C-alpha cells in the first residue's frame, strides 16, 4: 500500500489525473474536444503497455493521486486497460473509466471489477435516442443505457455525463429524470467548449451562452432535488452575482487552470497538460514534465492552496483561444 500516506513526514503533493489512454474511438461525437481532431496537430503517440505502466508508477511514486479517470478516445478499445490498472493496484488509487458505453458489456464489467474498477462515467446526451445518437455520430444510446444498467447491477457507481450544445441542452432536465429512474445519485453537466472536432461542428450544434444555460440548470436542479440527486458542473457557468437562490443540488465549478492546479491531464503520449481541451503540454511525465509538475506543486504548497470566492470562467470560452498558458 503506497498511496494513502497521511503518516508521511513530508506528504506528497496531491493531484487528480485525467488520463487520455487511448486516442482512437469507435464513435465520432460532434463536440469531441480531443485537440488533434481539428487537424491542427498530429494524433499523439499511443504508448505501449509497459511504457504506460512505467509512467504511471513513476508519477504515483512522487505524488498522491485522489483519482485516475481513464479516458480517451474510448478507453475500452484498449485490451490492456485491465493490465494497466492492475499494475498500479499497490498505490490504491481509485480508478474511474470514462466511456461512451458501447463496449461496456457484462463481461468487460466483470473483467474490470476484477482489477478493482467500481466507478464509471458514461456519456448520455439526451433522454431521446435519436438526439444522443446524432450528437455521438453513431447509434449508441441503447448501448450506453444498457451499460449503465449492467454496471449498476454489478454494484458499480455510474455517473452519466451530459455535454450541452444548443441542440440538446433543453433535454438535460429529462436526462436527469432518466438517471433518477436508474437510481443514480449524480449527473455531470459539461457545457460544450468548442475545441477539437467541436470547432468544425460548432455552427451546426451551437455553443450555448451562460444566459441560455442558466434556466436549463435551474430546471434540472428542480428534478434533481425531487430525486435527491446532485448535478456537477464540469465546466464553469458564470452566474450573475455568483449564485442563484434555490440552486441547491448543483455544484458550481471554476476553471482549474492556474499555478499549482490539482487537476492534470496525461496524454496517451505521456505528456502532462493543464487542460484536456488544449494540446499544450509541460513535457513528458518521464522527465521534464514531471520535474515541472513537482516544482509547481511544491511552490503551491508553500504559498497555500489557491482559494476562489467566485467562479473563474473557462479560459477557452472567455478568450476564444485554444491555447492555455499560466504565467
Amino acid at each position, binding site marked *: 500500500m503506497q498511496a*494513502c500516506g497521511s*503518516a508521511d513526514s513530508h506528504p506528497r503533493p496531491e493531484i487528480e489525473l485525467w488520463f487520455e489512454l487511448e486516442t482512437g474511438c469507435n464513435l465520432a461525437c460532434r463536440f469531441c474536444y480531443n485537440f488533434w481532431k481539428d487537424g491542427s496537430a498530429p494524433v499523439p503517440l499511443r504508448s505501449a503497455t509497459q511504457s504506460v505502466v512505467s509512467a504511471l508508477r513513476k508519477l504515483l511514486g512522487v505524488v498522491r493521486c485522489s483519482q485516475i479517470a481513464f479516458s480517451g478516445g474510448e478507453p475500452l478499445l484498449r485490451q490492456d486497460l485491465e493490465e494497466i490498472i492492475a499494475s498500479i493496484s499497490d498505490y490504491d488509487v481509485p480508478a474511474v473509466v470514462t466511456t461512451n458505453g458501447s463496449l461496456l458489456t457484462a463481461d468487460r464489467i466483470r473483467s474490470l471489477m476484477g482489477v*478493482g474498477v*467500481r466507478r464509471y462515467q458514461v456519456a448520455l446526451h439526451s433522454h431521446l*435516442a435519436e438526439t444522443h445518437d446524432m450528437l455521438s455520430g453513431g447509434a449508441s444510446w441503447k448501448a450506453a443505457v444498457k451499460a449503465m*444498467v449492467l454496471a449498476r447491477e454489478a454494484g458499480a*457507481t455510474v455517473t452519466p455525463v451530459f455535454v450541452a450544445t444548443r441542440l440538446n441542452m433543453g433535454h438535460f432536465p429529462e436526462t436527469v429524470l432518466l438517471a433518477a429512474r436508474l437510481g443514480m445519485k449524480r449527473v455531470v453537466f459539461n457545457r460544450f467548449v468548442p475545441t477539437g472536432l467541436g470547432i468544425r461542428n460548432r455552427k451546426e450544434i451551437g455553443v450555448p451562452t451562460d444566459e441560455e444555460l442558466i434556466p436549463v440548470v435551474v430546471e434540472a436542479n428542480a428534478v434533481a432535488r425531487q430525486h435527491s440527486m446532485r448535478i456537477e458542473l464540469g465546466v464553469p457557468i458564470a452566474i450573475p452575482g455568483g449564485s442563484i437562490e434555490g440552486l441547491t443540488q448543483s455544484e458550481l465549478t471554476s476553471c482549474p487552470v492556474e499555478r499549482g492546479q490539482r487537476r492534470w491531464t496525461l496524454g496517451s503520449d505521456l505528456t502532462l497538460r493543464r487542460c484536456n481541451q488544449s494540446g499544450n503540454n509541460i513535457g513528458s511525465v518521464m522527465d521534464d514534465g514531471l520535474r515541472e509538475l513537482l516544482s509547481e506543486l511544491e511552490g503551491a504548497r508553500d504559498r497555500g492552496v489557491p482559494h476562489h470566492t467566485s467562479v473563474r470562467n473557462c479560459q477557452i470560452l472567455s478568450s476564444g483561444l485554444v491555447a492555455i498558458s499560466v504565467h
Partner: protein
Amino acid sequence: MSQVTNQLHPPSADEVVAALSSLAQSDSPDSTAQSVVDRWRESVADMPEVSKAIANCHTPGH
C-alpha cells in the same frame, strides 16, 4: 410498452432499456414501462456502492 415481462424475475437489461426508452418518449404515464423499471430498481436496491469508501480513502489500511 408492449413487451411481456416475467413478473417473477428481475427484468433483463434489454427490458429495462426498452422501458426507459418508452418512458422517455411518452408524454403520458406508461404503467407497464414504469413497472419494469420499478422491479429492476428493487432488484438492485441492496447493491452496495463501494466506490464511495474507496474514493474517500485517505488513511492507510483502507
